[in-house]
Structure formats: C-alpha cells, structure tokens
C-alpha cells in the first residue's frame, strides 16, 4: 500500500473512531464502516483499528473472521448474496445460482475479473415467503427467477 493511501485510510478510520467512540463496543460499527467503503478490511486497516481502540490486532482479526459480512480479503464492488436456506432452495435457488454463475463466469465464493461482483451464499435472509431471494449489497430482491436475477446483475455493470 502506498504511504498516501495509508494516510487517507488512517484518517478515515480516525473519523470513524471519533464518530463511534474509542470503546471496544465501537468495534463493529467501525469495521462495518470500513467494509462499506472499501469492500474489505485490509491488514493495515485492522491494525489501525486495533491501535486506536487499544486492543490487539488479532482481536480485530478474530472478530472480522467471525462475522459473515466482514471480510479481510478484497471483495468486488458489488456483493451478491444468494439465500441458500430451505424455502429459497425449494423454490428454485439452484436454477438462479446456475444462471448467475454462467452469466458472470465465476463460481460462488469468487469475484469477477473486473472486480465488479463477488458472489456468495448467505443463510436465511428473512424473505422466506418470497423466495428465492438475494441481497445485492444492502438491497434485497425476492421472487427471483434466473431471468430476473440476471436482469438485476446487468444493472450493476
């Protein structure tokens, strides 16, 4: 990472810390903020957070790896999370999954070459009455069909 980038990241994290406070209890909101802006929490960011909150870097890493929505590896600009839980599964998740994989040319757990989309599975999104459902970043889409899903992905490009 360039020094300049590091400085601006430090500054950004500093602002998040000012916003949420220096307590350990601010850890999640701060990490969520970094994840939102950068689509991942870099090694440097984790250590910066640890330094500012006066906790150990491994504690930050421990928390990051615990939560599905916090990542320490770079994600695409858009994160697509398809629900894999039973009712979505019963109403055609598999077909939607195959269609998305085909269309993007990647498997679940991967990111497109142009870094525009990362594809992941999620557990129950709370849309069981309207499955299959998926989250695109923080927006939810329900009643998916392969066609509809592709249409939504098209718009991301």
């Amino acid at each position: 990472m360039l020094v300049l980038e590091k400085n601006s990241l430090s500054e950004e994290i500093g602002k998040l810390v000012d916003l949420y406070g220096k307590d350990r209890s601010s850890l999640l909101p701060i990490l969520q903020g970094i994840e939102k802006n950068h689509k991942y929490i870099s090694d440097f960011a984790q250590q910066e957070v640890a330094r500012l909150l006066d906790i150990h870097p491994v504690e930050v890493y421990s928390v990051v790896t615990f939560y599905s929505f916090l990542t320490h590896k770079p994600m695409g600009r858009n994160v697509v999370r398809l629900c894999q839980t039973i009712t979505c599964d019963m109403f055609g998740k598999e077909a939607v999954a195959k269609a998305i994989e085909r269309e993007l040319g990647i498997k679940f757990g991967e990111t497109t070459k142009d870094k525009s989309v990362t594809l992941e599975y999620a557990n129950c999104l709370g849309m069981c009455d309207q499955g299959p459902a998926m989250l695109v970043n923080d927006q939810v889409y329900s009643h998916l069909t392969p066609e509809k899903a592709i249409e939504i992905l098209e718009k991301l490009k």
Partner: protein
Amino acid sequence: MKENKETRAPESQKGHTIEKPKSSEGIGSMVSIEINGNKYSVPLGTTILEACKQNQIHIPTLCHHDDLCIAGVCRVCLVEVEGMRTLQASCAYPITHSLKIHTTSPQVRRARRHVIDLLLSEHYGECYACVRNNNCELQSLAKEYGVDQFTFGHVSAPLFEEDKSSYSVVRDMNKCVLCKRCVRTCIDLQEVGVLESIYRGHETRIGTFLDKPLADVICINCGQCINRCPTGALKANDPSDEIWLAIDDPTKHVVIQTAPSPRAAIGEEFDLGPGHSLTGQMNTALRRIGFDKVFDTNFTADLTIMEEGTELIIRLYKALVEGDKQIALPQFTSCSPGWVKYIEHFYPEYLDHVSSAKSPQQMFGALIKTWYSKKEGIDPANIVSVALMPCAAKKYECNRPEMVDSGYKDVDYGLTTRELAQMIKESGIYLPEMGKSHFDDPFGDASGAGLIFGATGGVMEAALRTIIELVTGVKVENVFENMNIVPVRGFEGIRYAELPIEKVGPVPEILKPLVPNWDWLKGATLKVAIAHGTANAKKIMEDIKAGGKFSECHFIEFMACPGGCLGGGGQPIPTSQEIRAKRAEAIYNEDASLPLRKSHENKHVLELYNDFLTDGPCGHISHKLLHTHYTPRGKYIA
C-alpha cells in the same frame, strides 16, 4: 499472597468473573447444598467445581485452569442440577442458593463421554508420537472414561501444517481441542495478544493475526501458552536431537550451563511432586548423559549483578551528581528474554531504560567461547554450548543475530527443563536416585544470590544484597534477618519497596574507577519495584508513561512469566500458583543453606575480573562481551 488475577478477559469470559463475598463469616454467606445425596455447606459464590474439589469429589475438566478466568466451553465438567433442563458446566456455575447436584448420573456420564468422543474424533495424532504422551489431559480423560474406540470416527490425516517458524514455540493445530487456555493466557494473563479464536462454527480454530506464522507476529516467546495447553498442540522447539548428535560426536566439546529454576522443578518430571531441589543429582545425570562440562548459570547471575549493579550506580551517579538529563531511570532488568521482546514490541521508546547487561545465559555463552576456551585450550569452533533453562524465550534469545560477541554463536542451544528430563529418561536414568556432584571449574559453585534469580523478586534481592553492602559497608544480615530481603519476595503481581540509605561506607576497590565516594547517596531512598507476568509489567509501564509513582523508581525487575523463571515456559507441566510457590520455596531454602549468598563475594567472579575482564565491571572488555543492545520493533505487523 495471591498472584494478581485482575483481568482484562477475552470475549467469552468478560463479565464472567464470579464475585465472592469478602469474608465467609456472617449470616447468609454460606449456602448448604447437596452433592450426590450428601450435604455440604459452601461459601456463597463458590462454583460447583470448587465446591466439589473442596469436598474431594472429582470432576473432570479440560478448559478450566486455575490461573485463568472461566470459559465454560469444553463441556467436560458438566453436572446435573436438579430442576434444570440442561446440564451445567460446573466450572462456571456459581452457587448462590441451595442446589441439589449430581456429578455422575447416567446422563452426566453419557454427556461427558460424548464430549470426549467428539473431541477425539477431530484430534489428529497418535499418543505415542507426541511430546505430551502420558501428560496429556485429553489422553487422561479418554482413559478415565474408558474410551476404547472412536465412536464418531477419527481424522486420518493432518488438516493443518505444523507452525515451526518460531525458535521457541511450535503450534500443531491438529491436536488443538479449542479449550482457549492459550488464548486466555496470551490475551488475559500475559496481555501480549497473539492468539485468539478465528473464524466461526466448525471452521473455528486458534490463530494469530492473519493466521501468520508465529515468528511473524508479536509473540514474546514466553511459552506460557505451552504450560497451559492440555494437549500437544503447543510445545517448545526441541533441540535435543541436535544436542545428542553433538554429544555423540567425539570432536565436539559439549558444555551445559544450568539455570537455577530447572533444578527446583525437574523432580516433577520424575513424579516427585513440586518443591524438590535436585541440583547435585542433576549434575551427575548430565555427566552421565555425556556433557563434557556442567556449569552453573548462577555464576553469570552473580556476574550480572556486578555488571547490572554497576550500571545502575553509574546511571544514578550521572543523573544525580552530574545532572545528566539524558540518563534513563528507572533502570529495568534485562534477564528475561520474554520481557525484553515485550518491551521491544510494546514500549520501544523505553528501551534505553533496559540494562545493557546481557542475561546470565548470554554472558555465560560469551565467556565459554572466549575465556574458557582459551584457558582450556579448546578451539571455540569445537565447543557446543547448551543452556538448560526453564524458559522458552531463551531459545529465541540465543538465536538473536547480535548474540555472537565471542565470534561464534555464543550459546548454541537453549534446552528446557522438560526436554532435559526427556534426555535423562532416554539415558536410562532415574534422576532422584542419582548421587550428588558439584559444578565444574573454572566457574565452580555460585552464590545463593544467583540462585534466587529463579523466583520473582530474586534479581532485585540479589542486587540489593550487593548494593547495600557495597554502598553502606554494613553486612546485609545485619539489616535483614538471615539476609532474606522479605519486602521484595512473594507473589503479588506488582511489588514496591523503599530502602533508605542512612549511612554510607567507603567505595570498594572494584568501583573506585567509577565513583569517588558515596556521599551523594547518603540520606537517599532507594526505590525499587518488581513485576512478574507481562500483564503486570504493562501496568507498571503505563504508570511510568503517566508519570506515576513507578516513574520515580530507580530500579525495576521485570519477569515475563508469572512467578518469575520458576514459572517459565520450559518448566514441567502442569503449573499452578501452588506449584510455583513450592518451587520458590525450594529455591529459597537452597539459598538459605548455601555458604555463599552474595554475588560480590563469589571468588570465581572476582578472579574473572582479575584475570580477564581486567578493566572491571562495565569496562571496555565487559562491554564488548557482556553487554548488548536492543531493537525497537513496535507493534506493526507487516
């Protein structure tokens, strides 16, 4: 006295410390309970596990450790509490009202067996190919519960690569049972913060920051995690194969120096129970194994006192008399390599406070391949220098790139108490039955002051015995009964003492080049402090940073390990406050029985100054061989 157990607990124990009423007197402070149909009365707040222990009812445990706060995660110590739907983890259940408890009901036994079966199903490794064979808590549990088959299968291949990157600690996560004792040790007891649980669910494992090799993170090598690991998942980096090769090589002159703590603990490896000193027996055994010479590290401990004590006097003189503002005070001890690495990482801006004197191990190393080799006419290239230490960090220390002042690697191998016990067993020797013998010349037997380096406060006491006499001219035994400087002893995590210097004596010959007289110390009060366990060291450092009372100290002893070296990461497993206290007792008793108990009276040391280090303590020669420098490392992990 109890070790300081105040905690900044890791996640799962936070808010889980169980508060006990201050005294067990008075109405309402005792609770009557029933265990397995028998009635007992226990103080309010006692955990079920403690209550059972107090009443000789055995409950198996795994994640529980007396030194650490409660976890309640392994679920081995489950018991049945009448009226509750689920079984309760006895280690985590405080008794606050009358309970009826069953510790061996059918469902309790079945649940425990299931838990053990599950742990075994994911525990890769064969017992006979493991350092912890016969001293493994998982193995004992399996035996206790009569496990004769793998009910839920067994992993057939390792899932993780062993992490051998560190000179000191080897991690094999295939054997980990996720009891989190190491996490609680590292974050809570030591406040170093290298290990934590990472990932979630079935993927959960113990890891470092970014799952990096141990050598690449801020591990201080104290090895306390090893001492508390119930299985072979954590072990020391064992050099005994190389040492055997050297012993078996007739062209090599293999010498071993032995630190004070191993001799007070090695008996535990031979089922003696803690608190037996086996100094003489160990010397004999070492010769039997094939070491060519057996030396006493206490000799260089005495030398350390001369060097470090002199350094302190120089610092005080420069600061107080010459008014030199650059002089860093308080001076910190440097014998504990775990502490040295800790301060290099966490408080690098304070490195100029650390005495430049090397640790006794490294002083010895430098002397063996210079003075000794010359004296004995042995080519230093053919000398293999082994250090028997209670310590895991000593393995790292001897591999520091700067530790080559003799022109060779000053100390070739750091060997732990456990590893030596293994070598002794392998040689067909039952240690307690060995005859006693002395250490070899030219270093000879050392002083009791060097010996007590093994206990927390020992370096301070040794230094004070010398400083008091050299400065005041009064015999220590006339100031402190039996020469025991009690104010600096004990297990309190942080200790502080003040010693007023009422009168001063003449400057002894050896210090004359350095100070004209002691008048400047007359009426002064020497302020000293002691911390053991890096969590306590951290408290002192923070206080100093904030300009608190410890910043006014003159000399502070820091030991990385709880209890000092006798609680080191290379000592026999298990460890507990009780065991450490027994080891300390053994050390202090041996000290009391020795004819020589002050470093400056060690005639071999004085000879060394006459013969070799001719420009005296902290002179040029000693600076070249016996002093070192430190590396500000910081906390950032690249």
